[in-house]
């Protein structure tokens, strides 16, 4: 049996993302990577908490943050996590078209989120004069939220690349782990956002 045949079995296994050794390695390695990412964001959160009152005479978090826009953004990202779960459900049932559709919806939700985040930053910078360079609080805020935004952007580019690359050939045991870890990454981004919503925005206005 050639390698191509091994990667394209007649009957897809129940967990195509973990059916090969490469897949198992990717799966486990990515979980480890997310462990490292957790430390990365924990360090950023710690820095933010230490500096959030150091506004240097500029606007404070109470004056800046409103919860309406952030609530919509939270809902968008939470929903996109759900749609990526649907995509993985269809991947396990070997329904490639449906998986692509749900991934497409995930990408659209993520893009909307990113657009709103850029709009939010624009408002702070142009109307409130609150920038990366205005205070230690500003530096910490834009770094923490910006690192998350950068992760969202990278995740979107990643998922779009995977969708485009595999659009014509469908699912096999070579690309199933790739889709799966991209969705893991997307969930991680979502979890980080829940903490940002709580620590930065909720605790910022209370």
């Amino acid at each position: 049996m050639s390698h191509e045949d091994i990667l394209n079995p007649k009957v897809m296994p129940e967990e195509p993302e973990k059916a090969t050794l490469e897949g198992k390695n990717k799966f486990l390695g990515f979980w480890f990577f997310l462990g490292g990412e957790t430390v990365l964001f924990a360090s950023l959160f710690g820095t933010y908490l230490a500096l959030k009152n150091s506004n240097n005479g500029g606007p404070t978090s109470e004056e800046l943050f409103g919860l309406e826009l952030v609530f919509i953004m939270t809902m968008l990202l939470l929903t996109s996590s759900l749609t990526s779960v649907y995509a993985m459900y269809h991947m396990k049932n070997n329904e490639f078209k449906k998986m692509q559709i749900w991934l497409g919806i995930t990408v659209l939700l993520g893009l909307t989120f990113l657009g709103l985040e850029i709009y939010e930053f624009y408002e702070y910078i142009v109307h409130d004069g609150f920038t990366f360079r205005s205070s230690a609080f500003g530096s910490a805020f834009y770094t923490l939220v910006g690192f998350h935004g950068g992760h969202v952007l990278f995740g979107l580019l990643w998922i779009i690349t995977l969708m485009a690359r595999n659009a014509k050939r469908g699912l096999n045991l070579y690309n199933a782990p790739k889709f799966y870890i991209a969705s893991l990454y997307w969930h991680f981004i979502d979890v980080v956002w829940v903490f940002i919503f709580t620590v930065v925005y909720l605790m910022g206005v209370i």
Partner: protein
Amino acid sequence: MSTTIAQNKGFGATLWDYLTTVDHKKIAILYLIGGGFFFLLGGLEAMAIRIQLIKPENDFVSAGFYNELLTMHGTTMIFLAAMPLIFALLNAVVPLQIGARDVAFPFLNSLGFWLFLFGGILLNCSWFLGGAPDAGWTAYAPLSTTQPGHGVDFYVLGLQISGAGTLMGGINFLVTIVNMRAPGMTYMRMPLFTWTAFVTSALILFAFPALTVGLFLMMFDRLFGSGFFDANMGGNSVIWEHLFWIFGHPEVYILILPAFGVFSDVFSTFSKKRLFGYTAMVFATVLIGFLGFMVWAHHMFTVGLGPAANSIFAVATMAIAVPTGIKIFNWLFTLWGGNIKINSAMLWSLAFIPSFTIGGMTGVMLAAAAADYQFHDTYFVVAHFHYVIVGGVVFGIFAGLHYWWPKMFGKILDETLGKITFWTFFIGFHLTFFIQHFLGLMGMPRRYWVYLTDQGLNTGNLISTIGAFFMAIGAIVFLYNVIITSIKGEKVGGDPWDGRTLEWSIPSPPPHYNFKQLPLVRGLDPLWIEKTEGRKGMTPAEPVGDIHMPNPTILPFVMSFGLFIAGFGFIYQVDDASWLSAVFIGMGICLGAMFVRSVKDDHGHHIHKEDLDKGDGL
């Protein structure tokens, strides 16, 4: 791919082979060359420091250059010499010890090496571009954030790039050890070196992201006008210290644990006994790794965190002496009653025990927070960390290189030269650093480029410098040994030490695919078990079949090169915005290579069973 073709190649083909290799054994050699080069560089910097301090008020180097030397000596030795040399041993040995044909992520393995190398080169480019970093290897803010010139920028970008490579290496070894052990190789049958590799990789995974963030914040402060560490903008420079040491303390365990693993394997092999207290050794390794994250603030006792914080961190620090003590006693009991054979690897290991114990003892002294106010920033601290890092890590690397050199290159390093290296280096080491305890207690501060005469520091510093020359002679003899062995050394078989673990069951150097048939592991020290039952090698766990191997690729080199270019762009865009083009070009190269990696299928290749080398493996 037949291995016979790989034998006779021109220089260009060999170079291309190493630039594109994803074979862990060749990556080990690359790490050895890269780490060895930076070890010599860091050694030269150390010699310049010691020559400057040979007499009071010396003017061998200027004050500013001295700051650059001490900063680069520390940074180079930790990040660019010790870590890569540890990775050389990990790459050379761990897959063989667990009976794997490769690592879990051969591509990432190669990427990790090239990131390290380009990060190290970027950092050292600073020497020729206006001055090296000069804020100490710890780069404390606000000194580092306000330091003029680009030296510290090179520190930030260089370490960021090489640190990313280290993180990848850590993840790679974690997954390799979890997923790719041979049939029967349970966790509690793994050789202790593999166990220490495992715990070290976990430490890398959870420690390096803190450094990543710290370096990002410093980069933003220096290059993009943020105010994390700038008190004028409400920033707080202690945040850097926390982030640096949350990474920095686990880092010393990242370095020392694999050395502990080397000694465990060496003691066991050359005492002809299984390791005493194997289970306790594993437990102690894991416990040291765990406690390593609880003690970072002992580097900050004098910052003023308060008596409660200082007490907690002092007690946690002292607690680490317990698992370390367990290890020391287990090594002694492994030797006890053993059929001991003393060679170079064994000499380094035996010398490690008292040397490291002295370092551990001064560690407990430093852990007493009240006393630390006296020791802090004196040569006592310098003596302490050189006792643990040289007496532990460097001795471990030398022991490991002597022990596994035949496995990596098929030749045993010359024993006479090895012993000359050992004795000169060992005597030189104690001559250099033992006296520094007393210089420190007499009040000589770290990092000062001169001291005054009539303060009782002259003799001690002279002795210390003489010792440094002995160490340099030892290092040169070792280098000579490597050259002479590669030219004249005789080929040895796969098992020159009458070994106990799986790496000695295959030829030296091992074939491209390591194991023709995966071995069946039946207990701790699997090869020894087979030997005691009268067999020559391992019992195979599978029939001879086609072997699947990864393809070589140039992409890791290209990605790292892209980041190297982008690094210059980030550094110089503060002077001239047109340098931003270098950022875009460099990041474009890197992301472009990542894109190619993502969309281009790479299924690897098969070695057909008819092409596998004949012979049963030894």
